[in-house]
């Protein structure tokens, strides 16, 4: 085996922390990691991937959570010939005790390559590279320290949410609790793929959407409020006195002209009915402006990446839903959506694509949801209406 990695060595230079250094570090203790380095160098030389489709591998009782992976150069790099990854469901908000982290490290040093992703872009802890035989013992060891697998395949995927109320003043919903509660409720849906395709849920505590839910979740939960945002005029004055240009930077940037600035009185007033809760004024004057107190969430559906019909951003389904444990209303809606999608969706058809194919109107009818103008930017321009046949 070739230990010479001139191309990758280039990536050890420069100020940003180097993943090549990390592989080398693991390679010192672990043969699979060493072969991973070799395969990666080969890809850098050949300019193609050296991984093949994974077969169906996994752990007993689960349909997912593991991504099977085989190298197309097993003779050259036998220790990474099979190199599956394990997706481990993170605790909501990505908070950890060092104890928990160290336990994961120990398990992974024993059963895998010692390489990880903290985290995968869905939010799992990715344990990167092990053999088929090691999967079950590794899973058992993880269970032993209180961790479980995340989602993969045509299942509910690992649910993620922003840091929310744990360390952010703007969250109008308890994102960590929502993530945890839904995750526990839907263990079966996460672990046993049975749908037309994957399904993702993400929750952000406010419209800043720090987990990019709107772009990446079939079911998007975004904190919002029904009353008026709160302005503390004393703090406003302080901002103004420090030379912050409230007129230019806040009032003029409000998307709906909802704010008025009295330069003389140094007073900022809101026309609450015009505010669309975009967060801008709050973001830029956090000491003076805060969200309202009547919190809840806007429920959206349909966000996803480009395969197959192009990318979708989530769109508004329920402008406002109260968010109180045990989240009955939301769970019922989820189940209703899944049943309907499961029945009507084609293989590899995400929710957005199905709704687009059959029409939002039909979806609303079958969900029993009343159409409201908040669901659309604008009404239809075309005259092609399917009226009820009387």
């Amino acid at each position, binding site marked *: 085996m070739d230990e010479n990695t001139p191309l990758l060595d280039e*990536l050890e230079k420069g100020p940003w922390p180097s*993943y090549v250094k*990390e592989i080398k570090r*693991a390679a010192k203790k672990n043969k699979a990691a060493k072969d*991973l380095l070799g*395969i990666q160098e080969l890809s*850098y030389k050949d300019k*193609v*991937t050296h*991984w093949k489709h994974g077969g169906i591998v996994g752990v007993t*009782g689960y349909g997912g959570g593991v*991504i099977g*992976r085989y190298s197309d150069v097993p003779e050259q790099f036998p220790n990474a010939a099979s190199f599956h990854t394990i997706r481990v*469901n993170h*605790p*909501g*908000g*990505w*908070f*950890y*005790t*060092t104890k928990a982290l*160290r336990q994961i*490290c*120990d398990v992974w040093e024993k059963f895998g390559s010692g*390489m*990880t992703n*903290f*985290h995968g872009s*869905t*939010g799992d802890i990715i344990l*990167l*590279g092990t053999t088929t035989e090691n999967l079950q013992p590794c*899973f058992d060891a993880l*269970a*032993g320290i209180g*961790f479980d697998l995340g989602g993969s395949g045509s299942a509910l995927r690992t649910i993620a949410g922003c*840091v929310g*109320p*744990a360390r*952010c*003043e703007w*969250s109008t919903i308890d994102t960590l*609790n929502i993530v945890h509660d839904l*995750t526990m409720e839907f*263990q*079966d849906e996460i*672990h046993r793929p049975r749908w037309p395709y994957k399904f993702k849920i993400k929750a952000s505590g406010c419209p800043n*959407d720090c987990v990019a839910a*709107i*772009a990446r979740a079939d079911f998007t939960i975004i904190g919002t409020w029904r009353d008026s945002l709160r302005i503390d005029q004393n703090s406003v004055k302080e901002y103004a006195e420090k030379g912050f240009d409230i007129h230019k930077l806040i009032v003029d940037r409000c998307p709906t002209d909802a704010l008025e600035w009295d330069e003389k009185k140094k007073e900022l007033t809101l026309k609450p009915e015009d505010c669309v*809760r*975009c*967060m801008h004024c709050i973001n*830029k004057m956090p000491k003076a402006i*805060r969200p309202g107190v009547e919190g809840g969430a806007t429920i959206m559906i349909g966000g996803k*990446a*480009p*395969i197959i019909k*192009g990318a979708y951003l989530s769109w508004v389904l329920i402008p406002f839903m109260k968010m109180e444990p045990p989240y009955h209303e939301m769970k019922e809606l989820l189940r209703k959506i899944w049943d309907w999608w499961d029945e009507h969706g084609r293989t590899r058809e995400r929710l957005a694509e199905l709704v687009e194919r059959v029409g939002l109107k039909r979806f609303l009818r079958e969900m029993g949801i009343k159409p409201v103008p908040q669901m659309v930017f604008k009404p239809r321009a075309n005259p092609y209406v399917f009226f009820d046949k009387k």
Partner: protein
Amino acid sequence: MGTTDIGPPDYHTMLPGVIKKNYGKWKYHEIIRPGVLKHVSETGDVVYTVRVGSPRLVSVDFIRDICDVADKYCEGHLRFTSRYNIELMTGDIANVDKVIEAVKKLGLPVGGTGACISNIVHTQGWIHCHSAATDASGLVKSVMDELYDHFTNMKLPALLRISVACCINMCGAVHCSDLAIVGVHTKPPKVDNEKLAAVCEIPTTIRSCPTGAIRRHPDENIKSVVVREDLCMYCANCFTVCPAMPLADAMGDGVALYAGGKVSNARKPPMFSRMIVPYLPNNPPRWPEVVDIIKGVVNVYAEHARKYERMGEWIERIGWETFFRLTGIPFTEQHIDDFTHAVETYRTTTQFKW
């Protein structure tokens, strides 16, 4: 068979004391310097967060190193962000400098807050994915080395989110990033007839193609398919359902660049990223052409955008024609949409700049 469906640990067990105590009670925050947040609670409590850059693809020893720091200064707690950064929290301001010193000793940058370029959301690439048309980690390293200062300071008009995806499946929020680097194939799948007969369902394979490019092999004796190359746009959907149709090609694979996406609802609604460069060949280990263009766009943006204006908001204001003029990036026929909703992108007004 062991226990199943225990789910992840309850987040309550993972929260530092100051977080648990002030959960839901935070009042406001400040960024006291790049990479350091101060959150103040209604209770009067304060928590300082030091945000630390991570390459994401790390060894267990890396995690242990970080744990050492957290044990020393953060009561044995830490968190990760939605962009892979590490956050070390402490209620004691005196610890902030110590944390910073400790992580710097580990070779890690402190930053990623405010009007900066935070960590790059990215994917597996040649490290692990069969679909990859490029390497993600290498691109991230090459780009971040050059944009390093933008991670550690906050001198941009607004936050600037970069993402890398190694193929058009776009794992990550690549399709809504200020700047996105996407691996693309540009050669149709090469059908391995024998393998196909063995491992793929022919009807499923044919149905998988969104453009109808795949047909049954004309020779009835060959249980395989053929691809009408003129109809192929290299989406790799066929390869996902049938491993006997790989698209990877040393000469054909490369990356495309996109710009102007966003996710937040601040000021303007979320937007998709839009193509700025249709194709650049893979040039590992450092992809200099990619890095140059990304740097160039960041510089033009930094110079021209107004305060608080995200990349996409800026481009919308000045117009794409001005974007291409200012950056010197050539506009080609590939920039013009010809997919399903293409017609919505055509300019149906005489309003444009010369």
